């Protein structure tokens, strides 16, 4: 049967066909849909972990226990989980273990671009790179077999254009899935218990395994030569292969499905028959460096950029530089005018709005974090000074405080969300309390993992597969960790948010925490609201309401006196959260009966 699937859907399906029994992940674009799809399949236990390291440890445990198991994460998630990848490389597996790393060239929704093929080399584990959805499914199936055959975790690396593109997949007729029995766990501390003496013995095993994997790669069908014109031979994988395939039409290709370890003999055979080896790869010169180290004068990054994602145009430019005849480009369009940008904004009704309006108003310095609230960096708030990685806000704020830089002149607060709190905020909070810190910490609890599309988390009382579970009470946790001053405030009450932050800021000799509570607008429990409306007679165009940064507010006619535009509210967008109403000094905004 043919179906059109995204890379992530195909990965989930491949894992299902492979008989995966346990899967764990922390959400992160572009990887999130892998677990969301697996969660709907039979015989699979799929979980949101509190962070990526915890996910990979649990997946390691499932594998040791004899199950086929899968972990999925975005590229930076593997930084968090890298510690676990390194011991897994030494311990090996019992049931097959596959780790999906979804990279984000172009940084469409990430704080950096990083090339996680480097982790394969660094941790000494094999890595596959599918170039479309069909290969996503096929390679995941293969990866599970290879994992068991070679006793190794297997990395499968996608990118945004693989995970989030859809293409046609031939899936087996019928269900094609069989539940797999657990393999027995046989006690073997020399393999699974990585004390130094065992680690020293395991390292040569890992090196020997790599050598055998490289041998396997020589004849594996995932690495193939497509002969064509031989003045240039292209080496490529992933989506870069697809672009190159179109641009270097009719040339010879070495298409790599396995990016590590590389098939040296196959590469030499290819290189020997072409005049020039050209590597087309996104981000790092990974193959290029490896192939050059073999003594083959490959070229790549002289022609194709190291940063940003590729496209047909980028590869075409590189081909031209190489002297390949490309024909004329279509007449370039005179870029006569550039339409105004559409910056991301907090949704109408977002519970984070009152906080950023207030932080800006109070002229505070803000250590921010990763989540929807990172939009606080943008206008009209311009309220966040640092954004680093998940959970970093608490650590950064503590360092600023410890260094003596948190002063009356520059008052700092830290801001993070509920999901981020459970991900990496907890140890940072323990650190502040333990080290006699005095930071002012804001937790924006919108009862979900908003940024990545409203996933459940340990604070929501629901699991990924829809079961009710113990809801971890953030306030109780914070108090139990030794914070004496904890304030709870309604996120939809701007004056209260301001008053509460002031109270917390008054405490300067010990840590304080403000938890603002209000659900994300996409949740069912979002309170039934109204539509707000601006009384055009009362509004004088003072523009204060525009500072709440709501897409539902826009500029209308100029006020006769002030010559400034009056505010209008788009009834299709407004949900009646009332934050603009609360900040209006002339009481010009009121609710309309719906």
């Amino acid at each position, binding site marked *: 049967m043919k179906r059109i699937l995204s890379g992530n859907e195909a990965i989930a399906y491949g894992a299902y066909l492979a008989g995966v029994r346990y899967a764990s992940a922390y959400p992160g674009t572009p990887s999130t849909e892998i677990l969301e799809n697996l969660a709907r399949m039979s015989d699979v236990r799929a979980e949101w972990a509190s962070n990526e390291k915890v996910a990979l440890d649990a997946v390691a445990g499932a594998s040791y226990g004899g199950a086929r198991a899968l972990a999925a994460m975005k590229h930076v998630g593997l930084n968090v989980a890298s510690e676990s990848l390194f011991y897994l490389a030494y311990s090996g597996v019992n049931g097959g273990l596959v780790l999906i790393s979804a990279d984000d060239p172009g940084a469409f929704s990430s704080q950096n671009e990083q090339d996680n093929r480097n982790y394969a080399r660094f941790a000494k584990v094999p890595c596959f790179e599918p170039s479309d959805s069909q290969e996503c499914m096929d390679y995941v199936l293969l990866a599970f077999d290879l994992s068991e055959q070679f006793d190794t975790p297997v990395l499968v690396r996608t990118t945004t254009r693989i995970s989030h593109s*859809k293409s046609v997949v031939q899936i087996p007729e019928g269900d094609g899935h069989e539940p797999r029995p657990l393999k027995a766990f046989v006690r073997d501390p020399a393999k699974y218990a990585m004390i130094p003496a065992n680690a020293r013995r395991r390292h040569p095993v890992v090196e020997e395994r790599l050598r055998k994997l490289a041998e396997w790669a020589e004849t594996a069908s995932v690495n193939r030569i497509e002969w064509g014109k031989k003045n240039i031979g292209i080496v490529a994988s992933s*989506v870069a292969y697809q672009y190159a395939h179109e641009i270097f039409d009719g040339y010879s290709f070495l298409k790599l499905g396995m990016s590590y370890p590389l098939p040296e003999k196959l590469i030499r055979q290819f290189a020997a028959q072409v005049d020039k080896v050209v590597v087309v790869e996104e981000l790092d010169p990974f193959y290029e460096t490896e192939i050059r180290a073999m003594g083959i004068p490959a070229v790549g990054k002289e022609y194709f950029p190291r940063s940003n994602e590729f496209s*047909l145009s980028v590869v075409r430019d590189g081909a031209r530089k190489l002297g390949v005849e490309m024909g004329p480009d279509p007449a370039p369009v005179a870029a006569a005018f550039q339409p105004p940008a*559409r*910056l991301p904004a907090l949704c109408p009704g977002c519970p984070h709005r009152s906080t950023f309006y207030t932080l800006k108003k109070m002229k505070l310095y803000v250590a921010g974090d990763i989540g929807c609230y990172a939009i606080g960096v943008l206008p009209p708030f311009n309220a966040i000074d640092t954004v680093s990685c998940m959970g970093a806000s608490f650590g950064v704020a503590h360092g600023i405080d410890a260094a003596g830089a948190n002063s009356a002149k520059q008052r700092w607060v830290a801001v993070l969300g509920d999901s981020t709190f459970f991900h990496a905020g907890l140890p940072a909070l323990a650190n502040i309390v333990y080290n006699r810190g005095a930071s002012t910490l804001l937790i924006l609890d919108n009862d979900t993992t908003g940024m990545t599309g409203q996933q459940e988390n340990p604070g929501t009382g629901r699991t990924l597969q829809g079961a009710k579970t113990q809801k971890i009470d953030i306030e109780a946790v914070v108090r139990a960790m030794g914070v004496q001053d904890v304030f709870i405030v309604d996120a939809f009450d701007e004056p209260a948010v301001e008053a509460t932050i002031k109270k917390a800021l008054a405490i300067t000799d010990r840590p304080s925490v403000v938890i603002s509570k209000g659900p994300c607008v996409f949740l069912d429990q979002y309170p039934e609201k109204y539509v707000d409306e601006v009384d055009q007679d009362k509004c004088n165009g003072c523009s204060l309401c525009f500072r709440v940064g709501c897409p539902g507010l*826009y500029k209308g006619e100029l006020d006769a006196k002030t010559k400034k535009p009056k505010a209008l509210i788009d009834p299709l967008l407004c949900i009646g959260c009332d934050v603009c109403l609360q900040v209006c000094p002339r009481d010009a905004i009121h609710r309309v009966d719906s």
Partner: protein
Amino acid sequence: MTKTDFLLAGVGGQGVLTASDIVAEVGMAVGLDAKKSEIHGFSQRGGVVESHVRWGEHVAAPMGERGRIDYLLAFELMESARWIEFLKPGGVVIVNRQRILPMSATVGDAVYPEDAVIEKALRAVTDRIIYVDGLEVAKGLGNKNLANTVLLGALSRELNVDPETWLDVVVQRVPKKYVEENKKAFWSGRMGTK
């Protein structure tokens, strides 16, 4: 039909991604290879949404190339101008007249461009400009969410594919209770009803 490239662009929440799923599935339904590629993430929060769809005997790259796209389907008026450089000279651009003000215009100094300015930018590339009052037609049918189906109807008229094939795919994609109104929306778009 050797190769056909589409670019669908609009603003988060307009149904661009569902519409592009439908275009990709129609390609597969007529026996072609099809790929689509889109960007989720930050763009969901009122940002620009772009989705490429390609049909062909064999499609390699999941997205088409600047200056070589055959059909640009703009779900929002100003977005047509932002993406027009992707259209091949003389290609078809279908423009929904709906305006969605960007935040840079509501909280900053940016102004929403005049119709004439947008039209001029489009004309620099093509004369095949088709305007559709997608939102108005949808509201007329009683549901503003039908605008994307109206646009698909307009696109279908430009392609040599049986409308029933389109409708089969549309019907599969929408909840049962909205099937009839989606069919009406599709036909309104296809007939060019204002």
